[in-house]
C-alpha cells in the first residue's frame, strides 16, 4: 500500500471520528434545550473536546500539506482558518453564562461542520480507494 492510500485511510478514520464528535455536540446542545443538562455541566463536558477536535483537524490538515495533497488541503483550508481565528480571538470555548444567547449559532456551526465532515468522509474514501487501486496497477 502506498503513502497516499495510507494517508487517506487515516483521513477516513479521522473524518469518522470528527463526524461522531459533531453528532455528540449536537446531541448535547439539544439536551440543553430540552433541559436535560445544565449549562455548567454542558460547557465543562464540551470544552474538553473542543481543543482535541481542533487539533485532530489541524493534524489532518498538516498531513495533507506534508503529503502535498493539494485538493484535500484546499477543501480543508476554510475550516482550519476558522478554527485558528476562533482560537486567536479566544472564542473557541463555550461560556456557560452566554450559552443560551449563543446556542443558535453554536448549533448552526455544528451542523455545518457535520455536513462538511460528512462530505470530507466520502471524498477521503474515494481518494483512498483511488490510491489503493493505483497501487494494483
Amino acid at each position, binding site marked *: 500500500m502506498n503513502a497516499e492510500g495510507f494517508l487517506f485511510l487515516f483521513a477516513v478514520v479521522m473524518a469518522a471520528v470528527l463526524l461522531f464528535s459533531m453528532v455528540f455536540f449536537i446531541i448535547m446542545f439539544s439536551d*440543553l*434545550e430540552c*433541559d436535560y443538562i*445544565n*449549562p*455548567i455541566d454542558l460547557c465543562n463536558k464540551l470544552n474538553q473536546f473542543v481543543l482535541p477536535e481542533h487539533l485532530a483537524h489541524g493534524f489532518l490538515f498538516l498531513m495533507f500539506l506534508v503529503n502535498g495533497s493539494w485538493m484535500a488541503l484546499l477543501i480543508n483550508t476554510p475550516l482550519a482558518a476558522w478554527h485558528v481565528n476562533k482560537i486567536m480571538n479566544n472564542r473557541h470555548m463555550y461560556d*456557560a*453564562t452566554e*450559552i*443560551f*444567547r449563543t446556542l443558535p449559532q453554536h448549533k448552526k456551526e455544528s451542523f455545518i461542520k457535520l455536513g462538511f465532515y460528512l462530505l470530507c468522509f466520502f471524498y477521503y474514501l474515494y481518494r483512498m480507494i483511488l490510491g489503493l487501486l493505483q497501487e494494483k496497477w
Partner: protein
Amino acid sequence: MRSRRVYSRYFSLRQSSVAQSPYANSDPKYKRCTINAIPQTTALLNKCKIPFGLLITPYRHLLAGEEPVPVINPPQIVRCRRCRTYINPWVQFVEQDTRWKCNLCFLTNEVPTFFDWDPETRAHVDRRRRPELTHATVEFVAPQEYMVRPPQPVVFLFVIDVSYSAVQSGMLATAARTILDTLDAIPNADNRTKIGFITVDSTLHFYNLNPNLTEPQMLVVSDLDETFLPMPYDLLVTLSESREVIDKLMERIGDMFKNTQIVQSVLGRALQAAHKMIHAIGGKIIVLQSTLPNQNEGALKAREDPKLLGTPKEVTLLQPQTGFYKNFAVSCSPTQVSIDIFLFSPQYADVATLSGCAKFTGGSVYYYPAFNASRPEDALKFANEFSHFLSRPIGLEAVMRVRASKGIRMTAFHGNFFLRSTDLLSLPNVSPDNSYAVEMTLVENLTTSLACFQTALLHTSSNGERRIRVLTLAIPVTSNLGDVFASADQFALAAILSKKAVERALTSKIEDARDALTYKLNEIMGAYKSSFTTSGQSVQLLLPDNLKLLPLLTLGMLKNIAFRQASTIPSDLRSFVMAILYVFPPELCVVQCHPRFWSIHNLAPQIGLPGQDGQITFPPLLNLCSDKLDRTGIFLLENGVEIFIWVGRAASPDLVKMLFDKPNYDQIVAGKTTLPTLQNDYSSRINNLIGKIREVRIQMATCYPHLYVVKEDGDPALRMWFLTQLIEDRMDAMPSYPQFLGVLREQMGKISAA
C-alpha cells in the same frame, strides 16, 4: 404615570378576574410590561416596533405604607397539571365550579376540596376570599416537594481587605464598627444565622470563633499554592452562640492591622477559600476590597488608559481583563453562593472585572471612589448602605421561572443571575434591590382576550422557610394597533432599552449602544407615524400622550454616564453606572436617566411637610434645562445616586443663612457636605426633602445618596458635573432637547405617511 385610558382598561379587566378584587392584577412596582394591550398577531407586534418585555422586581423592599405580600400555607399547592402554573386570580372556573381552566395553557384541572370546605372548622368557606384568588402577588409556604435539602440558614461570610489602603482610608474600621452595630439586625429569626470572617492582604487570615473561646484566634495562611482551610470547623460559626467572640473580633480588628504596610492583595485565593468554607451550605460572600487584587490567582493589572477613553477601544476597559472572576461566579452558582462586592479603591478598582462575581450570582456591586472615612459624609454613606445591606431580608437558594400564555415566548433575560435553562434563572441569593428584565416575542397568534404572565420565585426566606412568591400579571389582547400604542408604558420601555443598551455596549461598542437607542426611537416613532397620520400632518412629531416622554428619556440615556460620548469618564465609573442600570428597577432607571429637579427658594407652604397621606410633599418638578437656573435661586436635583443643591450667586442671604448657617453666599463651602439641621422652618423642610429622598433610595437600591453643594461660580469640575445632569441642554457634542427633536423631525419627514 400611566395614561387614564390604561387605568380604565385595568378597571374593566378586574371584572373578569375570578374574585373581582382590586389586587387581582400585579402592581407595576413588582411587575410591569412595556405594552398594556398585547397585539394579537405576530404581524401586529412586528408592525408596532415597540420592544415587548417584562420588568420584574419580585423581592422588592416594601416602602412605608405598603401592604406586605400575603403569605399562605395551603394543605396543597394548586398548580396546572400540564404547564405547572400556580392558581391565580385569572383562572376560570368551569363545569359548575368543580374545575379550573388554566389561564396560560387552557387545560382544565380539578379544584381541590379545601377551596370550599374547611376540614378543621367543618364549615363551608368562600373560595373567592382565598388570597391566591384575590391577590396577584402572593407567597406560598412550600411543602417538602419543593426542597432538595432542608432550607439553608442565612450565611454571611465577610472577606475583608486589610492591606495598607484599606486601613489608611478607614474602611476597615468603619466596616468593623458597622458590622458590630448591625449584628442584632442581621436576619436571624431562627437563631441559625452563620457568620465567618477572612481578612486578606498578601496572606489569608482566618478566625477561629468557637463560642468557648474568650478571644478570637487568628490563623494565618501564607502558603497560597493551593486553596486550603487551616481548620475544618469553627471558622464559620452560629451568630447567636459566638456572639461575644465576634463582638471582640470586630472591636479589635481595626487595631490589629493599624500599622500594616502591605500593599498586596490575594483576593482570588481568598474567594476560593471562602467558597470552600461555605459551599456545602451556600450563602453570601461579602467582599470589602480597597486594593486592586494584584497577586496569586485572579491578579489584575491597573489597566486604565486615559488615551482609550472616548475612542471605540474604550469598551475593552469595560470588559473583564480575566475570566477568573466570571468563572469563579459560575462555579459558585450551583452551590448557592452569592457574592456582593464593595469597592473602595483610591485608584483604579477594575469594577468591570470584579463585578463579574456579582453579576452571575445574583449579587450587587457598591462602589465608593476615593473613600476616606475621615470625611464624615463618606463614612456615613458607607455605614448606612452597609448596615441596610446586612439587615434587610433576603431570599436564599432561589430559582425564578417566568411563564406566559401559550403563544408567547421569552427570548432574552437581563439582570444579575445565572441562566440555568431556557427560562429558569438561578439566583443563589435574591437581593431586594435587583430587578430582572425579560424580552419576549409572539411565536403564534393569541386566541384569548387575555394574556397572562406568571413569575414564580422559589426561595428560602431569611426566617428559614421555603417559600414560593408568585406574581401574576394579566393584560388584555388587542387586534388594534392604536390600542398597542396608546397602552405602551414609556418608563418600562426606557428601562428595558437601557438594559439592552448596556448589554449592547459591553458586547460591541458604546457607540453601537447609542445608535441602537436612537434607532429604536426612530423606529417606534416611524411606525406610529406611518400608521396613524395622513400626509398633511407630516411636519409634526406625533406620538400618543403616553409615549410623549420617550424622546426625552432616550436623550437622557444618551447623555447618561453609561453611554455618553466623552473622554473624561473613568472606566470604573462607567462600569459601575452600567452595572447599576442593568439591575435597577424601572423607577430608578428613569430617575438615573432623567433626574428630578426642583427649585427650593420659593417653597409653597405645604412643601417639605407631611401631606394628607403622611408622605413628604415635593415641589413641582422643573424641566432639566439651565434656563430654569436663576442666580437668585437655590435648586435641588436628584438622580437616584446623588443629590445636588445648586446655589445662585445672588441667592437670598436669608435663605443661605437659614439653610447653611453661613452669613452670605461667599462663605458657603462647595462640594460633598452634610446640611446642618438648624432650628428654623426652611432648614427642616429642606432636610425633610433630602431625608425622604435618601429614605426611599436606601430602601429601593441600598443607596444613600451623597449631597453635593454646587455654587454658581464655584469649582468648575463640580459645576460641569451638575450641568451634565441637565439633559435638555447642549452638552459638548450632544444636542439639546430642541435640537434632538429637530433631527428626529427631519428623519420622520423622510417616512411617508400611510
